[in-house]
């Protein structure tokens, strides 16, 4: 029952953050960063297990590891960027949060370009 631990951690941290936000808002930001990191680390092991299963499936289906690696990189970028932008938005810096999201979109686009090129190449092979 890990969810009970997680909910307990979240509620305790929320109460502490509300106490701190009143006169030391920067400490409340640190607190929310710390809770976010803790929950992320807790879930990262499970994500790793799911990714291992996906890798095994793709190896069985004779998929190229390049594509799965690209997708994993994109998912990782999305998770990390979302984490950062949420924290910035919580602290009231909406502009910085938007910039982080913008940078993540560009990086994902850069990673996706080889796949798009591969799709177009195979399309060109099909068309006589």
């Amino acid at each position, binding site marked *: 029952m890990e969810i009970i631990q997680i909910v307990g*951690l979240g509620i305790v*941290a929320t109460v502490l953050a509300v106490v701190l936000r009143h006169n030391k808002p920067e*400490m409340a930001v640190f607190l929310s960063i710390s809770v976010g990191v803790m929950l*992320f680390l807790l879930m990262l092991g499970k994500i*790793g297990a799911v990714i291992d299963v996906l890798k095994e499936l793709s190896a069985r289906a004779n998929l190229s590891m390049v594509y799965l690696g690209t997708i994993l990189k994109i998912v*990782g970028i999305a998770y*990390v960027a979302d984490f950062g932008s949420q924290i910035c938005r919580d602290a009231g810096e909406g502009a910085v949060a938007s910039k982080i999201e913008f940078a993540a979109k560009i990086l994902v686009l850069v990673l996706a370009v080889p796949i798009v090129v591969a799709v177009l190449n195979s399309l060109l092979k099909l068309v006589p």
Partner: protein
Amino acid sequence: MGDIDLIFKIAGVGILVAAAHWVLKSSGKEDYAFITTVGGVAVVLVWVIQQLGTLFDQVKSVFKLF
């Protein structure tokens, strides 16, 4: 769940710094109050950045982001 201590440490430092700030401010030592706040923020920042570093290392190794 090994590092839940960090949350209580951060909250403790926050409350302590808030109290010290209030005491110093009410006794007329505004500059010391500011230095106390900056020191508390620096200490907590070091802890949080170490934790963030471990998070980013783990994310890199799980998602093969190199």
